[in-house]
């Protein structure tokens, strides 16, 4: 017992959340979009954030990835404080973020889109002398397989369907192999079969990393979520399993009362 306690800092860290948001507040001209928020994401967890429009869901992702600067509070990711870091340093620390609308490079091929996120040649001269090595090609093909786009590698990205674009952007994040993957409405605009495939994809890629998802589609949330947080007016309204959250009277009131 004792030996476990003293020389297993690794074991201790595993219990610590990957992402710990505490007292996070952002105020836009006095309007608090996120208000004293506490949120934790554990390792290997698929954590879904739901909430009515304007609850501050996307703002939370913006704050984590550095797009919006917080007014107060802290965001600790694997022991590093993100609120003071630059966007690209946050990405390099291991946070990947997918935007609400598929955000891909339409003039480039699927292959080039994925390659662009390969974590090498990220500085000016690194990019100038970047070589498309066998390793890069292998990694791109591996990720393309995961996101169901193996047969589309040479296709220009704007020719993909909406759902495929969503997958491509997820694939671009996978190229970075982030410890925390943040997805903003990954199944928006997808067909039913695409949603099923995406759920399967998320369950597969959440092995060994944490995933933070914003989603409206409750069926989809049910199929992926380990834990659900309900956000309302910038604050946590409820948290727990999908069933617990759905039967919570406060949540029902927020969703149905308006």
């Amino acid at each position, binding site marked *: 017992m004792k030996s476990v306690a003293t020389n297993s800092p690794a074991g201790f860290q595993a219990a610590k959340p990957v992402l710990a948001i505490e007292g996070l507040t952002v105020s836009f001209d006095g309007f608090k979009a996120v208000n004293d928020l506490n949120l934790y994401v554990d390792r290997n967890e698929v954590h879904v954030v739901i909430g009515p429009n304007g609850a501050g869901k996307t703002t939370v992702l913006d704050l984590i*990835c550095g*797009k919006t600067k917080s007014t107060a509070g802290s965001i600790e990711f694997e022991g590093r404080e993100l609120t003071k870091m*630059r*966007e*690209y340093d946050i*990405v*390099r620390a291991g946070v*990947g*973020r997918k*935007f609400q609308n598929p*955000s*891909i*490079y*339409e*003039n*480039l*091929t699927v*292959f*080039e889109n994925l*390659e*662009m*996120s390969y*974590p090498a*040649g*990220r*500085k*000016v001269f690194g*990019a*100038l*002398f*970047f070589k*498309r090595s066998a390793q890069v*090609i292998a990694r791109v093909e591996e990720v393309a397989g995961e996101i169901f786009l193996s047969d589309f*590698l*040479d296709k220009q990205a*704007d020719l993909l369907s909406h759902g495929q674009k969503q997958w491509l*952007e997820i694939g*671009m994040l996978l190229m*970075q192999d982030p410890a925390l993957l943040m997805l903003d409405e990954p199944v928006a605009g997808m067909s039913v079969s695409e949603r099923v495939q995406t759920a399967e994809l998320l369950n597969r890629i959440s092995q060994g990393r944490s995933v933070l998802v914003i989603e409206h589609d409750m069926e989809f949330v049910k199929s992926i979520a380990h834990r659900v947080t309900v956000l309302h007016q910038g604050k946590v309204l409820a948290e727990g399993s999908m069933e617990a959250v759905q039967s919570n009277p406060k949540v029902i009131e927020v969703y149905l009362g308006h």
Partner: protein
Amino acid sequence: MKNAYESLLGGKQGAIGLLVLATLILVVFPLLLDTFRLNMVGKYLTYAFVAVGLVLCWGYGGILSLGQGIFFGVGGYCMAMFLKLEASDPESTKIQSTPGIPDFMDWNQITELPMMWQPFHSFSFALLAVIAVPTLLALIIGVAMFKRRVGDVYFSIVTQAIAAILTILIIGQQGLTGGVNGITDLKTLLGWDIRPDSSKVILYFVNAFLLLGCVLLGRFILTSKLGRLLMAMRDKEERVRFSGYDVASFKIFVFCVAAAFSAIGGAMFALQVGFMSPSFVGIVPSIEMVIFAAVGGRMSLLGAVYGTLLVSFGKTYFSESFPELWLYLMGGLFIVVVMYFPNGIAGLWETHGRKWLSRYSLGKKLFGVPEVKARVFTAKPVEKAAPRELETTP
């Protein structure tokens, strides 16, 4: 070897395109034109350096600089200062009240060579300054603007303002810069007379080779991952930023490269034309250079060279015949290109010219019908990217 072939020449089609241009400026022009006209073409080709730089920073990087004259001018002035000092030896300036200083300084009652001019006695310093000073200037402007995420039209306006400020500064500091007349009466380069016809021909070729070198360097940049990043940034800047890239550093880099290219053009201008004046620094020449790139095709390095030649020929021809009308014609040309041919001559060539040529067997052999390149691994310069609307430009 194969790699260099692909990245520098852009495969077979790119190599042929470059060969055609090289033949035109290295063989056809020198054979067909007399020295006077050849020197004129040489002068146009110095503007082409700026246009090639604009393809990089505007066409691919999405950074529309309306102040490239700044770098052309500063590069030109650095070269002209060295040449002027050489032309102002005490022997040939002995009638001045202070012999050994440039004539315009003497006219402005300056009795001692200013500090700023001292290092330009050295040719190696001047050569270094031709590249380094404009690049440094671009670096400062770039850092100040891009790190703060000033972009789009605001960036264009600021560059234009800087061009205006620099012109005013040059004109105002008559004793230091020669004022509105600029630096004139340049005579020799390290004792070699640059004025006779024979020297002009040599300078023409030096200029042409430097230009082809810049085109090759541009190709290298565009075919690298950096080139694809530039396009990606132009279309989806946020995505690039949140993929772990410092977007500003790439913009600064490409802006500096464009500045360095322009500066080489400016220095070659001073050498070939024999003077440098503020009229090549300000807003009007800067915008003219943007028009060169737009007409040639802002996504094509070679197109930019053709665009420069064509518009410059047009300018010389029309401004000789209808000097009043030229500005309107140029404005009209720009509007037509922006509205109907956003990819300029190069775009027209891609959509029509190649098809037309491929009807003939020679064309088929040489240029081929545009085919889908096998596999992405041979990333070739995307000189025929999908037509995009041009950003609104004043």
